[in-house]
Structures are given as C-alpha cells and as structure tokens.
C-alpha cells in the first residue's frame, strides 16, 4: 500500500451532505407512474385454522384494484421460504413456509390476504374489511412446555416442536474435567426476545415490465444480490431479468438480511396486474412481522479449581425459532461455539435445541449468537469469582488466552487469529480508575447504597467468511466478497462493492482505502453499491461485521490488479523491464529515476489509446473476489458502573468505559460511532427492551414504540471509548470487524455491574431486561 494519508484519518463522511439536507433516497421516496398500493390483511391470532376468507366487501371498497388470497398466487410463486443450514446442518423439522397462509396461521401477523388499491389509504381501509373465519388452536409459547411430550404443536403438520437438536462435541473431555472440579457453578440465563427496530421500516416497490419480461425491485435490504437470487427463483425468472435496487437504507441490524413474504408477493402482484406495486411497512407491522433477535435461554454449568482456574463448561442452548425457521435462524447456535469466550478450557460441551413456537421467526440481530455467548460466559465467570471470593479481574487474567498462544485453536476447532486480551483489560481498568471505584463501592455499601462494577472481556468472530465454512452453511454460496474497479480514460475511479452500506459509511471508508492505494484524491473515487445491475455478478451483502474485513480486502485486491496492469503499460512506455517500475504516491517511475514519472491518470488515459504492449487489451479495470483464509477475531473490555436506587429499583449507568480492538483502523470516527451505537443496543437489551407476548393467547403485547421501549438520549449515558490495536494476520489490511462489537460486549458489563451491586443482598443473578420493577421485586424479596 502507498504511504498512508487517508487510511487512519478522521475523514468526514461523503454520504452525509445528502442525508443531512433531506436528499437521501430511502425506499418510500421512490415513486413510479401508475402505482397501485398494497395493504396486507394479517392474522390477529397466534395459531388457527383458516376456515374461510370473505373478500366481498373489501373488493367493492372505493379504489380497490383487487383482493388476493393464497390461491391467487398459485402458479405465480414457486417454492418455499429458504432456510439455510447455518450452524446446524441436520434439522429435525422445518415447516414449509409460503409467503401467504392458506390453511393455517402460525403467528399473529402472518399474511392471509392482500389488497391492491389506488391509494395507500384505500388499500388500508379495504384490508380491514376482509372477513376471515378462524378456528383457533392452542398457541405454543413456552419453550420447555413445547418440548414436553404431548404438547400442542406450533404447526398441525409437525410431529413435535423440535426444529433442531444438535450436540457439537464429544462429551468426554468436558466430563473428565468436571471430575477435577473444586467448585461447580450452575445458572440458567435468559436472552430476552428483541425487535431490531431499524428507524426505517421495510418496504418494497416492484415494477414488472411485461413486454421486456423484466422486474425492477426497490427494497430496503442489507443484501440485494441474495434477494435477487431468491425472488427470481420464486417468480420463475432468470437473475438477469431481475434488478434489485437497495438505495439508502435506514438501518437494518440483521432484520433486512433475509427475504420476507412481501418481497415475493409485491413483485408477483406487479406481474399479475401489469402495474408498479408499492408497500411500506408500518411500525406495528415491523414489530409483529420483521424477524426478532435473541429469544433464548441457556442452562450453563462451569467447573473450576479453587485457585480460579476454569476447567470446563456444559451449555445447553434453547432457541425460540418462532413459527418458521428464519433464513439464517440457525446462525444463532454460533453462541455454543463461542461459549468459551477469551479463556482456556479443558473441555466445553454444547448442545443447541431449536424450538418452534407461535411467535415471529427469529433470525440474526446485531451480533447474532455472539452477544449471547459473551453474556453467558462473562456471567458464568463472574459467578465462579463470586463463589471463590475472587476479584472478577483476577479470574479473567488467570484464564485468558495469552498473546503468545495465537493463532489459538479453541475447543470447537475454530482458530482465533490474534489478540492481547489483558492489554485491553488493563487499559479499561486504568481509564475507569478501577481501584478507586472499588474503594468508592466499599464506602457506598457502608451507606447502604447499591453500586456495582461490571466487566465484559469480550471476543468475537466475524468477517464471514472462509468458503470452507460458509458454503456449507448457506447451502452452497460461499460468503466471499467481490469488487470491481473501473478507471475511466480521464482517471476517474469507480468502485463497485458487493457489500451494502446502511449507516456504516462505506462510501467514505472504502474510498479512503482506494484513494490511498492509488495515490489519488478522495474526490477521484466513486464508491457504488446496492444495485444488482451494476458491478460484479454477485455481491454478498453487509452483516456479521464482514464488509471491511472481506469486502474492503476485495476492493484492495481489485485495485492491486489495476495498479499491476498500469505497471506493465508504464514499463512499455518507459521502455523498461516491468520489475524495474515502481508505483509510489500515485506515480509510476523506473527505479532510481523518480523525476521521470507518469501519473496514474496519465497511464489510465494511455490504456485507452494505441500502441499498447503486445497482447494487452485497452482499458483499465479489474474484478476481484476475496475468500478469506479465516474469520477475524476482534476483542476488548467493557466496564460499566451502575448504581441502583434502593427505593425504586432503577439502575443508572454512572460510568461506561469501552476499550476495543478491531485491528487496524481505516476511519477512527466511524469506528467510534459503531461502538457507541452497538453499546446502546446492548444497554437497551440489558435494561429496557423485550418483545412480550401474552403467554396463553400468543397476542403481541409490545406492538408499538409505546410498549416496546427503544431508549432515547435521556436514558443513555455518555461513554469513554478507547482502542488497542492488534492487526489481524488474516488479511492484508490487518483489519477486523467493528459493526457488532458494542452489542456483543455491553449487556454482560451492565448485568455484571447490577449483580455486583446487589451481591450484598445475596442476589447472584439477574436476567434481562433489568427493569426497575424486576429489580425492586428482587430486592424486596432478598431483604425479607
């Protein structure tokens, strides 16, 4: 790489001018002439047989173009909703899912009919006039009851409610290690079900042009190429006939990775009616229909020696799959593979059980499996420390994987690429003033106050991913990443990436990489994404903190190919041997004669001219696909200081320190921003958010932002954030992911602080969300 000017610098975002002035292009901002608007009739009950659907009144309502039920889509849509193998190749039962229910509804919000009308209001009015006669069935809500023999079933056709039941390792090492134990600590740990709540709900605008047999689909997606793959397959079209445009996207957090029923129904309706069709999700539809995250519980046991040496862990993960298997729902068992955290263990045995219920399907949500792993291991380590009366810092330091151990093969055979966990921990302790905090805590306890200090020494695997691991997990397509770099005759550089930026700032960071590598001004580089009609044949989207560590590397590889071609051409022009030509600061010159040089732009112009070296074609462009040799492994330490009001049970975060390590940093401003937002999403899980259903009827009780508490600025403290830098050996940029780190780290720090605060009352464990009501009741009970 050229001398760094931009990489590592706080460059202000190139996407911002349009976004701060109201000139972004989100899905609802697109308008096509002659559009009909769709509104969906959704099941008001969690589980029922559909006896009949009467659309008579709805069909006659003003402005209605048509009312459609499942049978109208027969012959229009083929196949069922995809369910990737992910981390559980062997499934017990995957219910078939069609985009629209015909005979049975299995969660509140499932689509039963759709209205097309001339206006949004008319469509919504008519959808309310559809009469559906339901024969209600018992709703399966409780995971343990759902696994009991004779339980009602989430799907009438199922044998039982077991979607998967898989054990990862032979148990012998773990069992042997448990025999050496001085102490064994057991805990059940809940993971509250969460709604992702991107501020922009989903939406689809489809325009099928019958004479050309071409479909253009605008939708709010993290993953446009995969949507093209799924939708073209379902509609019986070639991928070349479908263009997916995912414009400015107002957040995703995992909920815009997988295809949704509306992604199939809206384009099918456009084809059926020869009109553009548009649908924009309401917030209530979003909470009752967009995939949820977490929704799990873990039964954990940890064996340790008296001196604090961790020996072994047994984990059983129960995942609330929901009513259908989310496309990447079986990604969540990655929590089992990460359960050991940043520590050395003699053995870990892990079993995952996926349970079907009558709730919205779960799928990856920011962190997906890794927040759960961090939360359980960091909680368990604290419980061991409490049992042994050790400082939580000491038990961590005693058991960390050490810098000289890397690359470190962990219990499930995954190779952790690099790390220095103690360094990040020490830095966080120093920034927080740990020793002082403990003194302050002792004082405050004397005054009968509840102050707690919580640690989360987190690690993460991300950057999906190596083809050997990911091709089997997706069912065939390796999650590599592609890039195309095109240089025009005047030296303008257009870069196409297969990732999708929806807040991450790729237009800025990726351009920084390219501009540095080519030695050209940032303004010469245009970064494009989100339109399947442009760039490479396939892109892999943005999720799993993969964009920079896979996509950024692909871009730098493609740029490298362009530089190499330029070098051949420069050598020809200089009448020198290619190996004698060097490329520095945007100029080619012959070694030893830097004064006689050709700028990159001059070589670009020459590449479109005549007199090229023999065999060289005109033009200057290249494509690259990067198949990473390993995942990347960020890490860090978060420390939370919490004070709980003994009268009200309100937990207040008094101080929050985050020291994270994502390897080399392209743009520190953007990295910090990702950390801030990630932390808040995890604080939200720890203190505020939970999707609540009525446990008997399956009715969603948190269907609006009145009931589902997304925290505002008033609830959130400010943070002290810092970094350590341990470059990744996995890629040439030395980078790791950072998009999910904050969310992976923070819930454990907050809950550990709360448990520490309440430990004088004998309270050892608190589940999320730690609401004032919950804490008040726990404290009251403990005092009695």
């Amino acid at each position, binding site marked *: 790489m050229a001398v760094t000017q931009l990489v590592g610098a706080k460059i202000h975002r190139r996407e911002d001018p349009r976004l701060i002035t109201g000139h972004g292009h989100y899905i609802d901002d697109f308008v096509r002439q002659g559009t009909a608007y769709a509104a969906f009739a959704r099941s008001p009950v969690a589980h029922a047989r559909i006896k009949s659907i009467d659309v008579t009144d709805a069909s006659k309502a003003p402005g209605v173009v048509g009312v459609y039920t499942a049978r109208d889509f027969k012959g229009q849509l083929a196949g069922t909703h995809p369910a990737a193998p992910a981390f559980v190749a062997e499934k017990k039962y995957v219910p078939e899912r069609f985009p629209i229910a015909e005979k049975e509804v299995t969660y509140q919000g499932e689509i039963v009919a759709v209205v097309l009308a001339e206006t949004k209001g008319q469509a919504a009015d008519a959808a309310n006039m559809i009469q559906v006669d339901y024969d209600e069935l018992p709703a399966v809500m409780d995971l343990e009851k759902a696994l009991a023999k004779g339980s009602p079933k989430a799907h009438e056709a199922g044998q039982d409610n077991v979607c998967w039941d898989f054990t990862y390792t032979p148990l012998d090492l773990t069992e042997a290690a448990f025999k050496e134990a001085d102490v064994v600590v057991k805990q059940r740990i809940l993971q509250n079900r969460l709604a992702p709540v991107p501020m922009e709900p989903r939406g689809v605008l489809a325009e099928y042009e019958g004479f050309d047999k071409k479909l253009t689909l605008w939708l709010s997606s993290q993953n446009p190429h995969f949507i093209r793959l799924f939708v073209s397959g379902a509609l019986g079209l070639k991928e070349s006939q479908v263009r997916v445009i995912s414009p400015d996207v107002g957040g995703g957090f995992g909920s815009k990775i997988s295809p949704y029923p509306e992604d199939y129904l809206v384009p099918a309706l456009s084809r059926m009616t020869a009109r553009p069709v548009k649908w924009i999700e309401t917030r209530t539809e979003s909470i009752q229909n967009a995939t949820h995250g977490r929704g799990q519980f873990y039964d954990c046991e940890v064996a340790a020696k008296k001196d604090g040496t961790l020996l072994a862990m047994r984990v059983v993960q129960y995942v609330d799959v929901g009513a259908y298997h989310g496309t990447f729902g079986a990604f969540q068992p990655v929590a089992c593979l990460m359960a050991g955290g940043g520590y050395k263990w003699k053995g870990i045995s892990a079993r995952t059980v996926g349970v079907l219920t009558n709730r919205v399907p779960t799928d990856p949500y920011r962190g997906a499996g890794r927040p759960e792993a961090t939360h359980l291991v960091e909680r368990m380590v604290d419980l061991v420390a409490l049992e042994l009366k050790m400082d939580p810092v000491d038990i961590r330091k005693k058991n960390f994987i050490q810098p000289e151990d890397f690359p470190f093969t962990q219990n499930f055979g995954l190779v952790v690429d690099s790390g220095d966990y103690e360094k990040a921990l020490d830095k966080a302790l120093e920034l927080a003033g740990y020793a002082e905090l403990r003194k302050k805590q002792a004082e405050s306890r004397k005054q009968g106050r509840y102050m707690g200090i919580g640690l989360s020494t987190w690690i993460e695997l991300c950057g999906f991913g190596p083809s050997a691991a990911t091709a089997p997990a997706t069912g065939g397509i390796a999650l590599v990443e592609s890039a195309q770099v095109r240089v025009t005759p005047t030296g303008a550089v257009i870069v196409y990436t297969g990732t999708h930026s929806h807040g991450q700032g790729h237009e800025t960071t990726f351009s920084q990489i390219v501009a540095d590598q080519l030695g050209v001004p940032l303004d010469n580089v245009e970064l494009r994404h989100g339109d399947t009609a442009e760039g490479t044949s396939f892109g892999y989207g943005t999720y799993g903190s993969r964009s920079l560590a896979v996509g950024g590397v692909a871009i730098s590889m493609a740029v490298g190919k362009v530089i190499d071609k330029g070098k051949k051409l420069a050598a020809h022009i200089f009448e020198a041997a290619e190996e004698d030509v060097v490329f520095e600061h945007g100029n080619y010159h012959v070694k030893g004669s830097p004064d006689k040089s050709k700028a990159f732009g001059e070589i670009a112009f020459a590449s479109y001219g005549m007199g090229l070296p023999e065999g060289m074609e005109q033009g200057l462009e290249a494509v690259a696909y990067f198949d990473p040799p390993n995942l990347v492994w960020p890490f860090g330490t978060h420390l939370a200081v919490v004070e709980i009001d003994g009268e009200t049970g309100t937990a207040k975060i008094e101080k929050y320190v985050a020291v994270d390590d994502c390897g080399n940093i392209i743009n520190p401003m953007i990295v910090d921003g990702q950390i801030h937002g990630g932390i808040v999403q995890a604080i939200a899980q720890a203190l505020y958010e939970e999707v609540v259903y009525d446990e008997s009827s399956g009715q969603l009780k948190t269907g609006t*932002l009145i009931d589902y508490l997304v925290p505002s600025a008033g609830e959130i403290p400010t943070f002290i954030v810092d970094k350590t830098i341990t470059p990744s050996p996995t890629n040439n940029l030395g980078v790791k992911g950072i998009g999910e780190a904050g969310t992976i780290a923070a819930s454990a720090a907050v809950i550990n602080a709360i448990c520490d605060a309440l430990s004088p009352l004998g309270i050892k464990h608190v589940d999320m969300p730690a609401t004032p009501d919950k804490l008040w009741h726990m404290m009251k009970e403990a005092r009695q």
Partner: protein
Amino acid sequence: MKHKVAVTVNGRKHEHEVEPRLLLVHYLRDVVGLTGTHIGCDTSQCGACTIHVDGKAVKSCTMFAVQADGRSLTTIEGMATGDELHPIQQAFWDEHGLQCGYCTPGFIMAAAYLLEQNPNPTEDEIRRGLEGNLCRCTGYVNIVKAVQTAAKTMSGTPARKTQVAAGGN
C-alpha cells in the same frame, strides 16, 4: 369530501385539495413532494417526522394537513441556504451525528427548536430536549456532541471547516 389547504413550506406557497384525514407528514411527502421528512412509527414516538410549524417543532404525524391551513412550515429541505448548510447540519456532519441518516432530519429540526429555546444547553438539557426523537444507530453520543458544537457556532464562535476530502483540497 376534500378540503382546501393553503400553506407556506420553506418560503413557498402551496394550495391543494386534500382528504380531511390526510396527515401533515403524508401531505408534505406525497402531495408537496418533500421526502426529507421521514416516517418511523405509527404512534408519534420516533420523531423522524419533526418539522417546524410557525417556528415550533412539531411531529408532523400528529397533525392533519387541514390543521396546517394558513401556517408557515419549515422542513429539513428548508434549513440550508443554497449550498450553505445550517450550523446544525454542519455540526451533525462534523461530529458524525448520523449513520443511516433516517432519523437525522427529525433530530436536526428538533435540535433547531431546542437551541432557539435554550441557546446554551447543558448535556443533560440536550438529552432531555431530544427525548422525543429516536435514533437506533449512533447511541446518541455524537448527536449530543453535534448539538453542543452547533450551540457554540450559533452563539458566535467561528465554525470549524469540515475536512471534506483530505488529499483533494
């Protein structure tokens, strides 16, 4: 039955016949064609649709278009003067006060009203003053910073120049 509504939006007069149930936010987006004002919820929690009505910050999903008859409205599109950003817009850019950008117009409009009411707010006053707006990306840290920076700029401290393209200029 449709009703006549006459409003001034960002200094321009508009007259339309609208359904009485049409929300002001839908009027601005679908009738006037200003799509910078966003919709993020159905229940007036998220604040993405915040605009100014006669100078006061209002969630435009809480009003019908007909209620705006005769009023003067400012939307995010009316905040910059030509190419010159409003100091709050500039501060959001400088402080990385946005990521996906969807909530940003609402935050900028809410912040503008906040600073008009209280030109020199404390951090706590900023956090409380923006409680009616939700952001899912930034964790609010840089939004608060942006409002602090804007407060300084607007009270006369010279604005910092944004580094748009290092290496380019």
